[in-house]
């Protein structure tokens, strides 16, 4: 492991054997939740309608202080031992101080170096600072290559999560822990590597963690044909502020192998993380917990509404933008992927592009990577396509061109939200929009004219709203 806590992980993970015994339910209801509520109140953090992109630095400072205090007070629960891992403030500060200013993902000509980027900073390099394309959810066998190629042919994408899930091997369902899961992962990684080569981008960083079981991930860890050292794999801090030995084993394995780790702020808004304000505080604690335990190369903001799975709702955008910005303002962590990792609507819909734009505008203004590509809550079959990620970058570029202030970005996203938020409120947004087959010509792997028409329509409307997107 190369940054942050730098080798302290053995000591820190070991605290899961000696820390205060706390049963899960006790942690959720008597330790974590009351402290989260107290700290949110103590620092006067409040959500209000219209708050999407943060404009007030004092508010971010308050979220930062509360989140830091939360982690220091309650720690992180190791579910395997039902003990809490606690840190001192000095340890936390030392780890933050040790964070790098830049990270490099991928290999060779395709490697990307991502620097830390401040808010409204349009002069230190291109905006957005990077683009993550994401393929997530079940993918049909006959479309597996085509969907991946739809991303690989997009030059604006720097980093891809090839997380399309193979559901069968020779007609046999791929179940966690089965040999078929290992076979599926080997097939998945080697197919993606082949496609990357055939696209002339062999070293493009891949963050596609699909297996449930570590043994299946390990089956594809092969420097010749499998996971490359420039690739990135996921380690999970479970909601809320929990982890276990399986996740530590994953981190240990991938760090020993020499690959990278990604993690996410994962607050369930309305669920265990409470409302938007408490969830934003929790988000900072999540990100700090990653720094302390797992030395991630890349982090992201992935809050969701608890009662209706959405990464792009008004609440999710608030938590992603405020939590992420509070963390970014007080650290020099270099690679933070912003809001809307996956959209709620299906990919072939206007709403999908509006959700992507809402996420990308905040991300680009705040100096985060933008993301796009997956729709239908990542649960529908074949709901992924490269055009969404291209669009996210174009939105980010337009933000840079316009040099949007945070106030302007907030105003703009508030104009966009009415285009899809009502369908989140009535929980029907996921029923809108077709899949890859409806959106792409399966022979040429190009977006169909009618799909491009939707994409162009949203771009034209964004221009009408004042965003100079080309």
């Amino acid at each position: 492991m190369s940054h942050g806590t730098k080798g302290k992980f053995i000591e820190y993970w070991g605290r899961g054997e000696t820390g205060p015994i706390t049963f899960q339910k006790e942690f959720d209801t008597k330790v974590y939740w009351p402290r989260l509520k107290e700290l949110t109140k103590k620092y006067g953090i409040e959500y209000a309608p219209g708050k999407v992109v943060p404009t007030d630095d004092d508010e971010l400072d308050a979220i930062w202080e509360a989140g830091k205090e939360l982690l220091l007070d309650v720690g992180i629960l190791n579910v395997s031992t039902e003990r809490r891992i606690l840190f001192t403030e000095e340890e936390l500060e030392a780890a933050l101080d040790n964070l790098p200013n830049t990270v490099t993902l991928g290999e060779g000509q395709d490697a990307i170096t991502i620097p830390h980027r401040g808010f409204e900073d349009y002069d230190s390099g291109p905006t957005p600072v990077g683009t993550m394309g994401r393929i997530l959810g079940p993918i049909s066998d006959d479309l597996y290559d085509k969907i991946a190629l739809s991303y690989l042919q997009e030059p604006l994408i720097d980093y891809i999560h090839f997380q399309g899930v193979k559901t069968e091997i020779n007609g046999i369902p791929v179940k966690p822990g089965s040999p078929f899961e290992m076979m599926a992962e080997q097939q998945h990684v080697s197919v993606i590597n082949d496609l990357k080569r055939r696209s002339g981008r062999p070293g493009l960083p891949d963050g596609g963690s699909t297996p449930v079981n570590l043994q299946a991930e390990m089956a594809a860890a092969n420097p010749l044909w499998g996971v490359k050292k420039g690739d990135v794999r996921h380690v999970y801090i479970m909601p809320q502020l929990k982890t276990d030995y399986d996740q530590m084993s994953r981190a240990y394995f991938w760090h020993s192998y020499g690959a990278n780790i990604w993690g996410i702020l994962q607050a369930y808004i309305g669920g265990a993380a409470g409302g938007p304000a408490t969830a934003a505080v929790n988000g900072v604690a999540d990100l700090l917990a990653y720094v302390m335990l797992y030395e991630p190369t890349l982090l992201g903001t992935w809050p969701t509404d608890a009662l209706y799975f959405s990464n792009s709702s008004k609440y999710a955008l608030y938590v992603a933008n405020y939590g992420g910005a509070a963390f970014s303002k007080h650290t020099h962590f270099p690679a933070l992927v912003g809001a809307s990792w996956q959209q709620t609507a299906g990919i072939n819909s206007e709403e999908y592009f509006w959700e992507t734009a809402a996420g990308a505008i905040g991300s680009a203004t705040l100096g985060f990577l933008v993301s796009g590509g997956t729709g239908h809550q990542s649960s529908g079959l074949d709901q992924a396509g490269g055009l969404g990620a291209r669009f996210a970058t174009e939105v980010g570029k337009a933000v840079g061109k316009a040099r949007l202030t945070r106030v302007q970005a907030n105003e703009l996203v508030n104009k966009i939200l009415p285009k899809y938020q009502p369908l989140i409120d009535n929980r029907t947004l996921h029923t809108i929009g077709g899949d890859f087959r409806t959106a792409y010509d399966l022979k040429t792997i190009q977006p169909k004219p009618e799909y491009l028409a939707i994409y162009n329509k949203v771009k034209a409307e964004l221009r009408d709203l004042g965003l100079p997107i080309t």
Partner: protein
Amino acid sequence: MADTILAKLKQSILDFDEDAALEAAEESIEAGIDPVAAVGALAEALNELGIAFEKMEVFLPEIMLASDAFKNALSVLEPEIKKKNAEGKKAIPIVIGTVQGDIHQVGKDMVATFLATAGFEVYDLGVDVAPSRFLEEAKRLDAKIIAAAALMSTTRPVQKDLIDFLEAKGVRDKYIVLVGGGVVTQDWAEQIRADGYGQDAIAAVELAKKLLHVA
């Protein structure tokens, strides 16, 4: 007097206060209040919390605490109801868990908590639950519903395994099988011949009530 104690009972749930709930329940028995009316006061509070939860005015940890307070009060009131034999029906048992290979628990916890607050006897089997264990526990507890959650595309097929397993053992008709989770859809539920799909915790409770024909 009775009104004050019933109000106290209700308030104990709204305050998520386990000790106050137990105390108020004991007080209600001493005062000779009909235990069915006392349970009614508790249910009223839980309903209010359910509405507040949907509006994001209260949150899951608080619902969990309220559920514990409810159970505390019920531990005193239920034996009295049985003694009186007045509407002394046993709560309907439900087993719930996240399927084998899947360790996601937030959604499952929410459904379990809301089912408990709706008056069901919920047996939470936790995460990574094998189909055989669902069946063993459902049989042992005489459950009427088996609720199986899956959050990942790779673990969703285990919901089908559960149904296949029940069919193979010739007990499919004995249980209502509900499925849910981030990757689960109505289409999937129909495809695997589940009895119902709940989009969220509130919907799951309504579905359970509807399928069991309880108010």
